[in-house]
């Protein structure tokens, strides 16, 4: 399980960086999306994929019993997914608007602000 996830992350990172270096807007956006998925999976996998008891705390206890799963990575990934969703939505609108106004979807033609 872990090995296949690690391979998946590697593929996602590879494709993400490849797409990011392309010139077309759409490919850059797709690259960013793949990269954020890769990062989310990485957080998840690095924290360890194990089958453990749910971390429920009884009234009589102050900490979850030994052998329960760690809930923190899931909380982290959930936050990160929400953030990356919002940012991807924003980036899509921005790139669409940039395409409308600049009349090009080629990164190499964005030279107005360069020297």
């Amino acid at each position, binding site marked *: 399980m872990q090995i296949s996830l690690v391979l998946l992350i590697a593929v996602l990172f590879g494709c993400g960086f490849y797409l990011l270096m392309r010139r077309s807007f759409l490919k850059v956006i797709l690259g*960013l999306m793949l*990269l*954020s998925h*890769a990062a989310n999976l990485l957080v998840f996998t690095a924290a360890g994929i194990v089958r453990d008891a749910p971390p429920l705390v009884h009234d009589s206890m102050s900490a979850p019993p030994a052998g329960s799963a760690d809930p923190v990575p899931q909380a982290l990934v959930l936050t990160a997914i929400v953030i990356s969703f919002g*940012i991807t939505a924003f980036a899509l609108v921005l790139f669409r*608007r940039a395409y409308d106004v600049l009349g090009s979807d080629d990164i190499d033609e964005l030279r107005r602000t360069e020297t």
Partner: protein
Amino acid sequence: MLVAAIAVAYRVYPDHIEVLHVGKWSAPFGICLVADGLAAIMVLMTGLMAVLMAIFSMVTIESRRIKDGYFFLYFVLLAGVNGAFLTGDLFNLYVWFEVLLIASFVLIVLGGNRDQLDGAVKYVTMNLLGSVIFLSAVGLIYGKTGTLNMADLAQRMPDISNTPLIQASGGMLIVAFGIKAGLFPLFSWLPASYHTPPHAVTTLFSALLTKVGIYALIRITTLVFASEQGYFQPLLLVVAALTMVTGVLGAVAQYDLRRLLSFHIVSQIGYLLFGLALFTPFGLAAALFFMVHVMAAKAALFVVSAIVYYLRGTSDLKVLGSFAQLHPALTVLFAVPAMSLAGLPPLSGFIAKLALVRAGLESSAYITVAVSLAVSVLTLYSMTKIWNEVFWKPAPAMQSGSFSERPLSRTRIWGMVLPATILAAFSVGLSLAAQPAFSFALRVATQLLDPDAYITAVLGTPS
């Protein structure tokens, strides 16, 4: 907000560390906010900038942008910046970074003319990439240590230091913050986008955003990766020197006032990193002093460039001219922060650079010191260029007889001159009060390089 910042600073002065456990979850399980000397200085400067830039924005931002929520985003940005300065949790730092990034994304495109969109595409792409790298590093660190609280991390780090995984994740964090701070070779988005939004936005970004990146670098290298300093030091010194050089060379080649100043931001970041990379109390204190000085001086220069723009409707150096004849007061207002930035005595920039050079010589980082001195001369050269082109030479239009200036209302003029004056006065005041200010910076730096106090304050147990 400035009042609250002063209150925080007062409680932290001189050596106390204030900790707030949000939701009463005790560290390291809950998220906590920590205000030590460094965070207090940064929050204080943010508060000062926030007030001055609010005045500046009120007179320069068009009503169409205000209607689109300019001031709302302004405060979201400030919330993100302050959160990033105060948090004591690595993942929480990521969240605050995203808060301020989203606000800055929208601020940079708000109004949406062609240049803004063009710059924003680069800004957004680069910063998202930085966030992804940051998040991956956070994940790796959590997987290895099982904690994200920075104090807790610092405590566990010596046991597992020098393993490739930790060094790799530390390197990823440095790359991520380097993108946000505008370090060589990751700075290219900065001069491509900072000059496109309205002047008030540029000023605010230049004063706060790159500094958040540097703050995060200081925090990470002195606290979490304190045991890896020897590993990262050579890299950071080389990067600092290259950042200084490329920034200033870019500036020298520019003929647009705001782009020139944007390149200077990069160059100044190099100086800050240089002070940090020495990892001595004196070097770090010099970097802190430099940070406060450069925030004020840089913002003052950007405000002056805004006044120039609003008077003439352009910021092209070749077209501008004869400000010294027509606006002598404005000329003084430019000269003070410009000379301070170039490091001429007796202004604050001179003291900051002198301290940096001394710290560098003490740690025998001779090459970087030599580079920083050469860059100083080039900074002076580019400031002289602005001086000659904008203030001293007669405007080309004057000779051809087509010279005209836009009339500005009184409130507009004062709304721009007031922040510039306060910032310039702050810069002068900093040089007059250099001794107490620097000894305070030295105390903060000593506190930073001895993370035990921070760990004890957060975790509540003597380590």
